């Protein structure tokens, strides 16, 4: 008789054993530090102070919520995240649909379109910072030549343009990953649906709206959540282009927490900011899990 899966206590035990290495690594390197981070957020722990770290309850959170800078940074984080996610999903979807068509040289197009995803984010941020340069930047040179600006502009230095400028970089960097996820999703849609649609005489737009979009929804959900998490965590782009400036207009919670920790050495406060950020992400995690769950059930 063929051995059956999941039958018998020994079999099941073996199944759990297979999970052990994963759980051990995640427990040690993620779960434990996570809990420790929450603990640190309840302490006054400043490396530049000679006083021993001590427990202060919610004091860090109280002073955080009383700080205007927190609310301003929270808002910037929201703008940064929403703008990035919306733009990346729309552009990623457009690219995916376009490059899913039967085109000559499609493979080449796809490979090129994926380049930003594989360019290390440190390199990407530095390239863009250089392109945005207010004195020698190529973007200024081109816009000036085209007559769209009458003098070179300090894109990353001006309050009104700094945030849009870093968002554009981040969209450039992040869209290809969305594209590849959606492209993968598109490939799982059976051509029969479209053949049926073609018989009904549906237009390209109708086919997209009535067939592609609904069937792509699981992929879109996954892409949205992953992009959100990636964007909230996208420290490198902001850090290497503006360090949160000018006047804090590109500061997101992540960069702020980093500054608190590694420039001001106030680990307690930094941990508190991180925990708040975690709380916000946890909401997304819940949505993510809910969606995965539903797909599993369906």
């Amino acid at each position: 008789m063929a051995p059956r899966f999941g039958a018998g206590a020994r079999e099941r035990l073996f199944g759990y054993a297979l999970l052990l290495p994963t759980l051990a690594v995640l427990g040690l390197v993620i779960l434990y530090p996570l809990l420790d981070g929450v603990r640190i957020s309840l302490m006054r722990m400043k490396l530049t102070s000679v006083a021993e770290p001590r427990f202060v309850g919610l004091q860090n959170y109280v002073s955080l919520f009383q700080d205007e800078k927190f609310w301003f940074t929270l808002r910037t984080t929201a703008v940064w995240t929403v703008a990035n996610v919306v733009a990346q999903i729309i552009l990623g979807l457009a690219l995916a649909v376009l490059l899913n068509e039967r085109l000559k040289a499609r493979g080449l197009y796809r490979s090129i379109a994926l380049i930003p995803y594989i360019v290390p984010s440190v390199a990407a941020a530095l390239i863009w910072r250089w392109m945005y340069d207010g004195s020698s930047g190529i973007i200024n040179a081109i816009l000036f030549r085209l007559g769209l600006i009458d003098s070179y502009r300090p894109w990353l230095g001006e309050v009104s343009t700094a945030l849009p400028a870093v968002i554009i970089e981040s969209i450039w960097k992040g869209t290809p990953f969305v594209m590849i996820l959606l492209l993968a999703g598109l490939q799982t849609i059976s051509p029969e649906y479209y053949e049926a649609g073609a018989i009904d005489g549906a237009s390209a737009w109708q086919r997209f709206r009535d067939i592609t979009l609904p069937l792509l929804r699981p992929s879109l959900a996954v892409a949205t959540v992953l992009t959100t998490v990636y964007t909230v965590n996208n420290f490198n782009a902001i850090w290497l282009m503006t360090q949160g400036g000018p006047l804090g207009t590109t500061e997101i919670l992540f960069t702020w927490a980093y500054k608190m920790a590694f420039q001001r050495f106030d680990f307690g406060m930094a941990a508190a900011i991180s925990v708040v950020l975690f709380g916000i992400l946890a909401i997304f995690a819940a949505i993510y899990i809910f969606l995965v769950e539903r797909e599993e059930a369906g």
Partner: protein
Amino acid sequence: MTRQARALSRRRLLQGSGVVAAAALAGIDPAGLRAAPRAQDAGKLTFWVISPFTPDENAEIFKAAKQYQDEKGVEVTVESTAPPDMLNKLITAVRGGGGPDVVSVDSAWNATLGAAQILTDITDRFSPISDQFFPGPVETGRYLGKQYAAPWYTNNVALFYNTKMFADAGIDSPPATWDELVEKGKKLTAGDKYGIMLGGGGFGAFEFWPFAWQNGATLISEDGTQAEFGSEAGLEAWTYYSGLYLTDKIVPDDIKSANQSWDQVFAPFIQERAAMVMSGDWAIFAFKEGNPGLEFSVAPLPKGKEAATVIGGYNLGIPASSKNTDAAWDFIAWLTAKEQENILQAYNRIQARADIVDSEYAKKDPLLQVFIEQSPVGRARASVPTWDEIENTIMADAWDSVILGQATPEEALSSAVKQTNDLLQG
């Protein structure tokens, strides 16, 4: 088993990394920041230097370490860290009980490191040789009357000017006073050309201090509790300084994005769109490399009521975690001695020793000579532990809000004073 033996065996156990992990999981090591110190060999020193000193394996600093070993029989391992990371690496390492025996630290970090007891008090060792150095750099190594670091190299801010642009505008000498700076700056400003380039953000804050001092203002009160740069004299200097951009309009708009690195401050000067720029000696190399045809010279900063400039540079200190304090001090004394002037000269840097003024080196390079001659009027910034935040966050934002048109100079300065006071007293 006796109690002591048990404790010992437990510690032994804890050395196995897996057990440490388990202990950490179980919540042992509650402070979390006091790890076992790393073993330090008495005959060896570790020296952390900033990365510009270690461009390659043949860099002068490695030769110096070798030479020291040959002379003294003590091996010095040189490890380099990028300048922006040095403070962070040092503090986290020392708090963890690790770190080097000798470290190069930016002179502006001294109070932070002294107050945190990251650096060892070296007052008694340093006092006998103190007068060999310029007073400004010595001051940067002091906090609350104690010496935490010995001056290594110094730099200060002077005025670079484009001699060709000056000649074309019919100006025969660099500005020597505040009024001349504006007057000559206006003559040089036309179309896409501007009189002078200033820095944005923290660079703008850094270069404000000379103007404040020149006008008789002070930065922070002696006891370190009050901001004094907002005084009448300070405000006057601030208004003059920001007026160069706002009202005299002799500064290009590039200033708005010149808040990340000196390159951005230098670019308009290199491109010959700005006839002057304030900077330290580190600009010389950048100018020569960026525009080999650039005709430029250096002058002392234009004078206000008195001459003054701001100094920077690096000092050498001994981290509190070092077990080799004596050997470490010997190395510092050796490295800062007159005999080792060739090391810093290889990097085109100015040794912080007073005797450099009369040295051959000072006469060799007319550009560098200006900086060396200006050294005696160089002043240290205030020695308070939160200085970095005052200069690079509060004053940087104040300066940005002025040049970005978000606040009037007066509003920005008084808000900065208030924030600084909150920080100093908080």
